[in-house]
């Protein structure tokens, strides 16, 4: 059986226009050849730092932005070239939860109208059924029923995120793309929302693409994790292997940079990366990470490493493993 969602060599390049005639002077290589799949009931976490293209991947999947190249398959069917009306049935299956619970809700609609709107657009319920469905969704995400007539400004951040989740659930989707759904929330509220998302997944057999920058949150909620750097996936595997045996130097640095809330944390060894993430407008040749990589050698500077299955079910895009898995990571001798 084909996976729920499969993405093959997805690319999204945003043109930069310049001058009076808006000539295209350059491109932002936001997503530059990304492939992955999500099975039914599974959570794939997509992590990376700002500007790595992780949000663009999420938005391209739902075709909120048109991909430049590549294929998006839903239940084995290629939806890449579909127009608006053709997309409509697929939009019912794939919904999104946004990062900012303040900006993603229309301030002039009541909470009940916001949650019920997808039902109107997709003409799936008569007004009476709709009210019942909205009431049910409110109950499901932990909002009091009398709040249907309240407006977004009357809610706290955590409650607004619950409205966003109820809206995403309205059409019984199979896949939910969460674009940093908890990063704007305080930790005590963040835990409530993460628990809610996991409960809903169990109950409704949902699949998630969970896009976030917080590695601890991603590890908690995901089955598998894909790490992105400057438009490309550099490593992907199940979360335990990723944590135990990071095979890409960037993953290793990312793991060691996350501060750990424990008394013993002060003594642990860290890899502190030098420099900043290069610009996606003019990405460096070869491996995008080579300028910051502590193990880089000559080959990394001109040859792009392919994402390949370095060991069973563990993919990494790094030249270090060309002659077999090299763990712990070290610079190759003679390089």
């Amino acid at each position, binding site marked *: 059986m084909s996976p729920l969602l499969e993405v093959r060599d997805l690319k999204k390049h945003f043109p930069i226009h310049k001058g009076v005639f808006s000539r295209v002077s350059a491109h932002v290589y936001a997503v530059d050849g990304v492939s992955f799949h999500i099975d039914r009931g599974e959570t794939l976490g997509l992590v990376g730092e700002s500007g790595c293209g992780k949000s663009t991947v999420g938005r391209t999947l739902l075709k909120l932005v048109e991909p430049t190249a590549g294929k998006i398959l839903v239940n084995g069917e290629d939806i890449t070239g579909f127009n608006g009306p053709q997309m409509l049935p697929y939009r019912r299956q794939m919904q999104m939860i946004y990062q900012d619970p303040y900006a993603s809700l229309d301030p002039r609609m009541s909470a009940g109208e916001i949650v019920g709107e997808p039902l109107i657009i997709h003409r799936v319920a008569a007004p009476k059924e709709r009210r019942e469905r909205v009431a049910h969704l409110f109950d499901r995400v932990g909002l009091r029923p009398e709040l249907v007539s309240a407006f977004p400004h009357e809610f706290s951040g955590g409650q607004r995120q619950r409205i966003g989740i109820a809206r995403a659930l309205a059409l019984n989707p199979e896949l939910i793309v969460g674009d940093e759904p908890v990063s704007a929330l305080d930790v005590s509220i963040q*835990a409530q929302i993460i628990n809610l998302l996991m409960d809903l997944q169990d109950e409704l057999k949902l699949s998630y693409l969970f896009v976030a920058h917080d590695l*601890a949150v991603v590890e908690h909620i995901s089955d598998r994790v894909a790490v992105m750097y400057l438009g490309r996936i550099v490593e992907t595997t199940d979360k335990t292997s990723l944590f135990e045996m990071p095979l890409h130097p960037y993953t290793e640095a990312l793991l060691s940079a996350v*501060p750990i*809330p424990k008394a013993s944390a002060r003594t642990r060894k860290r890899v*502190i990366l030098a420099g900043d993430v290069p610009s996606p407008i003019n990405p460096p040749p070869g491996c995008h990470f080579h300028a910051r990589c502590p193990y880089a050698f000559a080959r990394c500077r001109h040859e792009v490493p392919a994402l390949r299955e370095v060991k069973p079910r563990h993919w990494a895009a790094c030249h270090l493993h060309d002659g077999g898995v090299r763990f712990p990571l070290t610079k190759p001798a003679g390089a």
Partner: protein
Amino acid sequence: MYEPKLVEQNMTKPGVTPAETVLEIENLRTHFFTTGGVVRAVDGVSYTVRNGETLGVVGESGCGKSVTALSILRLIADPPGRIVGGAIRFEGTNLLDLTEREMEAIRGNDISMIFQEPMTSLNPLLTVGRQVAEAIALHRGLSGREALDRAVEMLRRVHMPEPERRVHAYPHQLSGGMRQRVMIAMAVSCDPKVLIADEPTTALDVTIQAQILDLMRELQDRLGTAIILITHDMGVVAENADRVVVMYAGRKVEEASAKELFECPGHPYTKGLLGSLPNLEVAAHTNARRARLNEIKGMVPSLASLPKGCTFASRCNFATAECHAAYPPLVQHRDGHWIACWHAERLLEGAA
């Protein structure tokens, strides 16, 4: 490259030798008088900072941690805000008694501050060199030329690549991490005794955050500056603070050494906060479907209408009638470990 006299200053760590208190906040109360009522943003907070140590101040949004910091520098906008009570003693002098002019001599000189969002706290119209030089020229009475030379030196101190060139750059030409380096260069340009860092790395990516925290530690080792590190990130506190103050709804609910706080937290809120964090190591080895995070139910009460009794009681699993009746006093239960909870002793024993 660096001033040798600064290198020689030794850093005193609490617990090793009783370090000298440089800043002392006593029963500070800062309220905001709004049309919706009096918001008690800070309501009786006390803490001290010793030479060369890092004091972590943690809490969620609206707990009063930033307002406390702004109160120290007397930067509260009046109206609507006002410091209505308490004292802030810097080397024995109560800052609340000083005139505005005397205060100006302290701000950015003896006590300086780093803000969360480097883009909004830098002036977009001035080169970063001029902005770093401004404080130096003001407090050290240097000429423009000399101050600019010193600005280059400061940018070098914070490891800005190519400082001679970057001194002429405008903020928009720099990355987020480099802007934060500029902020730090400004803040340490007059060798402050106290550095207040308000969420200094919240807007930054983790790999850049690691660079900036590393830089702050390095500067502290060299200059002996006391740092007040305000953050919502328990991980940042665990790895950087010597002592920690936990705030909730405008009050200090717990204070302890970082080691003690993370090993045996005494206040139910602190316990809840630590339990609600996904742990990288644990998360990697457990099946997400079964491992639920411990959530703290409900939300922070409105600061304009705080409940009678303990402000955390409505969210607390241990709350009894006693908790709803009166706010618990802050009591020292172990050496240096202060907790404001009626059930602290029982909770500490449970943890041990």
